[in-house]
């Protein structure tokens, strides 16, 4: 009997996920995938969007997806909440309690988080993120927190990455925590290399001597991505830390070797 047979069925969760989106279509595409997965699993799905002009909401679409969502809404499996009702301090736990009281075994949240920046202070917002993080760790809850990349530069991005460690999605690049370290998927280039830098910055600050990046599903890295691998880990490596770049695909390994990333002290390329 394998390990998977021992796991209670239906309780595995996606966790507390940071979505960085560059545009509305990108956001909607990720949100639709998130909602569909929840409905298929039998979760109670609750999503909170900022107000849209008439006809512009997710449920106004007349395609098959829109029809399916409308049916789920009518049956109470899906709920659309105005953003102002989702974001008041402390209300998120009540929302989860209510859904579980309706008989659902698990709850799946999604919120257009960066749209709430206008109505609350950053520290209030981060308090709510902490609460959601606790709910995701202690209750049968998954949450997709949607942030526009234009609203998440510098310290904000760092706080968000630290607050969602480590589950991050964007159009080009996914990050997840696996048994063998941080699992990178997709493509990293000049457009999103700052996200990689932030992820590394948070990971090396965790205080362990080795940060392992699983690159098996990473399909592209440009010079900017390699630069961030080196720069963002520099102090950590100089203090004796190691960054392990595990099992890169041949194309990524070729770039890493050409740029001699593997020749920097404290960077170990293995299995490439």
């Amino acid at each position, binding site marked *: 009997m394998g390990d998977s047979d021992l796991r209670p069925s239906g309780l595995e969760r996606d966790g507390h996920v940071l979505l960085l989106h560059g545009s509305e279509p990108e956001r909607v595409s990720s949100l639709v995938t998130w909602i569909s997965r929840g409905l298929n699993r039998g979760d109670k799905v609750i999503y909170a969007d900022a107000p849209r002009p008439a006809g512009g909401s997710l449920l106004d679409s007349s395609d098959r997806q829109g029809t399916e969502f409308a049916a789920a809404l009518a049956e109470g499996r899906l709920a659309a909440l105005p953003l102002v009702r989702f974001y008041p301090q402390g209300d998120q736990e009540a929302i989860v309690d209510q859904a579980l009281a309706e008989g659902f075994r698990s709850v799946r949240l999604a919120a257009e988080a960066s749209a709430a920046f206008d109505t609350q202070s950053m520290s209030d917002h981060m308090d709510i993120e902490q609460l959601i993080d606790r709910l995701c760790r202690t209750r049968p809850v998954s949450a997709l927190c949607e942030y526009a990349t234009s609203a998440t530069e510098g310290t904000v991005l760092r706080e968000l990455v630290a607050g969602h460690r480590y589950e991050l999605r964007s159009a080009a690049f996914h990050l997840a925590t696996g048994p063998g370290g941080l699992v990178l998927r997709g493509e990293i280039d000049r457009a999103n290399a700052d996200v990689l830098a932030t992820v590394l910055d948070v990971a090396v600050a965790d205080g362990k001597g080795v940060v392992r990046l699983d690159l098996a599903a990473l399909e592209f890295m440009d010079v900017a991505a390699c630069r961030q691998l*080196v720069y963002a880990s520099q102090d950590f490596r100089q203090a004796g830390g190691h960054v392990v770049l595990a099992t890169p695909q041949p194309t990524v390994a070729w770039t890493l070797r050409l740029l001699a990333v593997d020749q920097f002290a404290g960077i170990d390329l293995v299995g490439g």
Partner: protein
Amino acid sequence: MTVPTPAGYLHQLLLFTSPDDLFTAAMPGLRQGLDAGNAVILACRDADNALLADALGPHPRLACVSPDGIYTRAAAAAEAYRRMVDQRITAGARRVRVVGEPDFGADVDSAAECSRFEAICNATLARCPLTSTCAYDVGALPERVAADLTAVHPFVLTPTGPVPNGRYVDPATFLRRSEAGPHPVERTSPTAEFGAVTGLHQLAALRDQLRAVLRGQAVRPRIVTDIVAAVQELVVNGLLHGRPPVRVRLWAPSGQLVCTVTDAGSGFDDPLAGYVRAADGDPFGPGVGLWLVRQLCDRIEMEKSVSGFTVRLSTSTRAAD
């Protein structure tokens, strides 16, 4: 008058007419080098490597390497030299001596590529503790090629040792006068013309489109990877250091790919750009993108025009993986 060995790079030309010639000229320096704690690397044709290595006898600081793995394209060969020197110095050698017979194969204009390689070495290896003896069989060389090779070596190896070469031309001047200019195929309509790129957020889509076009042309995967990575860096440079929009055009004449990346900026004029990495000591400092591009394709040239600044990239699709 022969010169004392400098601390940095001593780059000398040896035009020989027979293996005996090569042997007589090269051996004294190699013997002295091994005696003085230098590492010696032989990168000649097999027969010449064997001739020199047999005479020197087995030695822990002597290595023969295959010229095929080194002389792939000018920028890559210069980088291979730099890495070989780095490794030997790290391993404890005081200085490195290379005797090589550069040959870039039949698929490129090997003579022109040799001259380019030799010219850029003067810039990229300037600070390396290296003596390189570049040996060419003069009997196989057209006169014009011999003249070009003479122009790119600051020293000539004579039976009494290296002497300064009065006909030496600095690398920027040499590269500028040997530029090929637009490829004739650029006068025809492109195989593919990609939508104008105005922001970094469009890079991923451009890469996808470029991959699809190259695969459609049955370009081998390794070359697809290299071209996509090279165009990525050129477009990033155009967006961040030039001026948007950046336009990418691709032609696929027989056995070749020609790609132009044009931004709307005023560009720059430096034929050595992208050959020297870490000129300021930072391996990921300015210019590293262009450095990578030079490693990934056979040739790039830069050109200012009324419409902006164009980088032209060309690469053979026949080259072995």
